[in-house]
């Protein structure tokens, strides 16, 4: 008997007592009633030591300090207005070593969750491949206010489960040494969020 068939048979035998069907009680909150989601998101992001900027006008100033910038191929042109440094579009795909050489990456996101301060990338528009937001040491992420939801259950309904996903809550961190939180281990050491759109 193959391992597959044997394991499935073992599990079926183990359930010989026929446990009764289970009703899953979903009484938890699925929609947020908070008045100001944006303020909540900013509070949570800053609690994680992400740096938050407001308005698309913040971008040129932010980018002017960056010499070599990686971007996904479909980054909106107005995000890069006036950028004078070296621009590295991810086409053909940049190698890990090439990405390691760059100063920062600029992307958008799919959804942001106010309750937990989480930004979710699902390889959709203006987000690019996963490696792009991983190897450079600084990640600048543009979040449109219409992408902000209150709670995780609201976020999941907006995502495509088949797309590779990266959920980011603040910069890379470790608490392995005497439980002291240290920002910056292997992922980007700096996360900067630019909030754009009405209500930002």
């Amino acid at each position: 008997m193959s391992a597959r068939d044997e394991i499935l048979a073992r599990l079926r035998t183990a359930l010989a007592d026929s446990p009764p069907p289970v009703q899953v009680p979903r009484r938890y909150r699925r929609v947020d009633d908070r008045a100001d989601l944006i303020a909540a998101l900013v509070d949570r992001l800053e609690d994680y030591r992400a740096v938050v900027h407001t308005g698309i006008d913040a971008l040129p100033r932010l980018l002017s300090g960056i010499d070599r910038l990686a971007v996904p191929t479909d980054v909106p042109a107005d995000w890069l207005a006036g950028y004078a440094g070296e621009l590295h579009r991810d086409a053909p795909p940049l190698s890990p070593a090439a990405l390691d050489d760059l100063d920062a990456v600029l992307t958008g996101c799919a959804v942001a969750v106010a309750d937990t301060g989480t930004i979710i990338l699902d390889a959709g528009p203006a987000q690019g491949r996963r490696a792009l937001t991983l190897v450079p040491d600084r990640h600048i992420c543009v979040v449109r206010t219409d992408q902000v939801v209150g709670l995780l259950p609201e976020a999941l309904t907006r995502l495509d489960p088949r797309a590779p996903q990266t959920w980011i809550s603040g910069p890379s961190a470790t608490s392995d040494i005497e439980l002291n939180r240290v920002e910056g281990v292997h992922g980007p050491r700096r996360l900067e969020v630019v909030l754009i759109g009405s209500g930002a």
Partner: protein
Amino acid sequence: MSHPVAPATGSGRIRTPLPFPTAAKPAVADTQLRANLHRATRTIRAKRARVVDEVPDWEALRDAGSAIKADVQRRLPELLEQFEASATAAGATVHWARDAAEACRIVVALTRAAGADEVVKVKSMATQEIELNEALEAAGIAAYETDLAELIVQLGDDTPSHILVPAIHYNRAQIREIFQRRMADAPADLSDEPAALAEAARAHLRRRFLSARVAVSGANFAVADTGTLVVVESEGNGRMCLTLPETLISVVGVEKLLPTFTDLEVFLQLLPRSSTGERMNPYTSMWTGVTPGDGPQDVHIVLVDNGRSAVLADPVGRPALSCIRCSACLNVCPVYERAGGHAYGSVYPGPIGAILSPQLTGVADNASLPYASTLCGACYDVCPVKINIPEILVHLRQQAPHPPAERAAMRVLAWVMRSPRRWAAALRLARTGAGPLGAYRERRTGARTLRRLPWPASAWTRSRDLPLPAPQTFREWWGKQ
């Protein structure tokens, strides 16, 4: 299925080589270790309590999490078939492993087929359970742990002592010493500041990440309806391993399933707050088979039984399979706080280990673990999926083999306690007998306890003191008032 196949127990690092009281002795005597453990568990307890308190629907989330897992257990065979079909359709290759040795053989063969002689690893309980690093080494393949705590433990030639923070038993000075001794590229003037130690680990692993061809991971969740795997982490070492290499092999216990992608809305709220005491861990990665042009193009999933079918076969003990490895139960356990993780022998320490390990191996092979508890119930209170650990502990104690002397003593005691008259007489006798001894011990030590009894009762006093009867009972005192 024509012939029913009996559930089988597991192998690997899930057995305690020594009885728990013996294994716990050095830890309890090590004041540095106890201080490290006390500080660490107290810190995580406080963080967890704070972020749990701010969630108004925490109990509703626990109820949902508990019910979803009960549903998974009830439908495990069909959900596994569904997961296999979804993951395969998305471009992954699914393998099945009956036990630890078979799982290791599969990973070794896949690594060889990829032409690699080294792998980078994401922290994973399942790979520790099957002793994968040892199997890879025996096959001439170097395995590099990339989680900071796992790296500390690996460089220290040690084993993890906590599910979530495997190096919890080390302080910063000890970590600095390990890095200087074993990390060839550590800076000569390395300080013991956590930031400097983390930076040394970053530099040490960076090139390895950028050039690795094969990565090995576990998974926190496996979603049946989509074939998605989920890994939750903090440092980005997980993202590095899951994204950059060409081949990705994930070792996943069969109990890790969730029925639907939507169910993640419950578990991704329960897990981070229960484990690290954060609202959300810094990074969560999800992948479904292969995505052309993004991430590993050769994706394998090894589904492991290794004793889980035996756990499923016990209707009382079955909920142990609901465990999401958050380790909240370790951090509130008075026994874990004093004994540390190594005393439990298994990769699963603490209260959850005390019920999971004996069920995975068969209770006779891990008979001391169900006793590694005070039954105080703190673990049940904090468990995000409401596993009734004390109830399962008592259930397993009943299955553990008891020595003949203990069985005889308990039979006599049961006979005495069945009759109020016999019980009162026995108490009177005990008081009279122990009266002078109790008074003597109280004068000498300030406590009415005995440290050592003669054989065969010495077995009982090996790990506890015997309280002597009080000079008078409450009823006698009441009668005099």
